[in-house]
């Protein structure tokens, strides 16, 4: 486990330097194109400044921005006890020092993601649709996958990569657009001010700058996608190891990918965070090279081919079985993992989740997240009271009994729970 984190740190550094060089080069070329004499350094400074500002923003508020874009709401254990239990189990299994915060997105499409640059202030977010569809073992698989992203520092790596990508795309876009609009005037200015020989040099720089400005974003994006795909495989491997039950994650992935609902709050920027690409209709048609996630069918196949145990070596064996001999995913240090992790039996309880049941529980979960109160009348009718209902009592529409509305109790429990967590 520790070796994997180290390998990840090394990779972050390499990535950081590679993309940094590309960024500096781009800044230099663009700068010297616009201002022929000494503009290159000015360009570098501007490029680094853009990168620095973006980094600062995402470092200090990264997860809160992402969470609010995704309309995720922080919830207390009363909303979904099982979810909290499973997160705590995985926290223990992964040896994470602090329990991550838990967020729910009130949408029917099943999906999940993890945020937090440091493991100490991380958060795990799931959709209401995920909770209503998955059984306990499957939910555990999903949470283990997300917990692996946190423990492996994947979020840090992907954030840095994303910022670099963003800066490179931004600068080339501005440059290419600027070129389009100002080509006439700047051309005239240059031809009159510079001598013949430096004009030729200017031409060369211009051609290189244009080619680089077109290529750099594409290359950076491909690099970004490749890293993103690899992180998904590694998180699957680690998730299987944490739960000791690869089938749980496999069947969860199957259920998530078989849903044809669109996750409305996801967009191109946040899509790589999710456990399964939420932008299905667009993602499916793209080639493998330009996809942020590996094909889900392949991930499921690998998890299901794991036999003999649930350690990294077993995952690597299953990986080469599915992807062809010689394909590697686990770094060499992880392959020394000879811990005997036997695949465990599925949990005994597991009432089948049929469609009607899933729909009803989805409604219940969404209402609980929205702070509805649930009152069961003596006649057996379950009433759902919206949080803006002000009267202390409510009349049962079926039998006419008056029921006490426990909003104050709920508020008291919620504030008490908050006090404990802080």
């Amino acid at each position, binding site marked *: 486990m520790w070796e994997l984190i180290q390998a990840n740190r090394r990779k972050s550094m390499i990535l950081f330097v590679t993309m940094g060089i590309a960024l500096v080069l781009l800044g230099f070329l663009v700068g010297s194109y616009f201002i022929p004499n000494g503009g290159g350094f000015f360009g570098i400074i501007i490029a680094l400044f853009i990168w620095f500002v973006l980094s600062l923003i995402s470092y200090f508020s990264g997860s809160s921005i992402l969470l609010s874009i995704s309309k995720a709401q922080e919830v207390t254990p009363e909303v979904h*006890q099982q979810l909290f239990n499973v997160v705590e189990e995985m926290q*223990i299994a992964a040896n994470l020092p602090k329990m991550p915060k838990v967020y729910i997105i009130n949408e029917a499409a099943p999906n999940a993601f993890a945020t937090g640059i440091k493991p100490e202030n991380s958060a795990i977010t799931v959709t209401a649709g995920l909770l209503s569809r998955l059984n306990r073992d499957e939910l*555990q698989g999903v949470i283990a996958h997300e917990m692996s992203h946190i423990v492996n520092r994947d979020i840090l790596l992907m954030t840095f990569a994303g910022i670099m990508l963003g800066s490179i795309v931004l600068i080339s876009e501005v440059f290419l657009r600027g070129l389009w609009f100002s080509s006439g005037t700047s051309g005239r200015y240059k031809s009159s001010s510079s001598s013949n020989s430096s004009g030729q040099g200017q031409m060369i720089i211009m051609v290189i700058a244009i080619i680089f400005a077109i290529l750099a974003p594409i290359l950076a994006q491909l690099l970004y996608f490749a890293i993103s795909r690899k992180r998904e495989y590694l998180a699957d491997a680690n998730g299987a190891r944490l739960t000791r039950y690869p089938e749980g994650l496999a069947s969860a992935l199957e259920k998530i990918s078989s849903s044809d609902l669109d996750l409305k709050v996801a967009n191109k920027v946040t899509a790589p965070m999710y456990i399964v690409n939420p932008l299905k209709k667009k993602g499916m048609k793209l080639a493998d090279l330009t996809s942020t996630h590996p094909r889900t069918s392949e991930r499921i196949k690998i998890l299901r081919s794991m036999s003999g145990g649930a350690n990294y070596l077993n995952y690597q064996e299953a990986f080469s079985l599915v992807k062809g001999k010689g394909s590697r995913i686990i770094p060499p240090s992880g392959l020394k993992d000879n811990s005997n992790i036997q695949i465990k039996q599925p949990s*005994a309880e597991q009432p089948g989740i049929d469609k009607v049941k899933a729909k009803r529980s989805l409604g219940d979960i969404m209402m609980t997240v929205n702070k509805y109160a649930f009152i069961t009348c003596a006649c057996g009718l379950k009433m759902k009271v919206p949080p803006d209902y002000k009267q202390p009592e409510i009349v049962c529409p079926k039998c006419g009994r008056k029921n006490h509305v426990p909003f104050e109790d709920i508020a008291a429990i919620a504030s008490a729970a908050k006090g404990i967590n802080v």
Partner: protein
Amino acid sequence: MGFLIVVIILIVFAVLMIVSMYNSLIKLRNQVKNAWSQIDVQLKRRHDLIPNLIETVKGYMTHERETLQNITNARSQAMNATGVADKAKAEGELSGAMSKFFLVVENYPDLKANQNFLALQEELTSTENKISFSRQSYNDQVLFYNNKIQMFPSNILAGMFNFTQEQFFQVEDKADREVPKVSFQ
């Protein structure tokens, strides 16, 4: 003069080595203790939940007095056990009694519809999982610590300052017993 300096440097170096080795041993022993307290919290939680469970199911399971009695006995034995090995054995028996009980529950659809029971079942399942996950990390820590105590040169220091080996928390499991034994004949 030069000789004296070399000797002093060597002595200082040796002292620093010993101090850092001693500190790392202390750190490892504390990690083992900490991992053990993690398990202990979960074991206590399970002991606290069981009376609630029995109270909830008593009305439904009038014909399963024996199963319930087994759980109660196993619980009180587990609560009285001292020492890692004894605790591990008693807790293993309690886990066995619990899993038998949850198999019997399948025959009582009324009970499985009871919200209170479902909440308790979820808590117990989760506690059971937490025990097994924290057991894993405890055993990892113990292995690391025991290795350090036995290996040269830290074994000398361990002997001098009375660092003793810790016991693994091993639960007798049916699955463990089924592992085929290799014989060299």
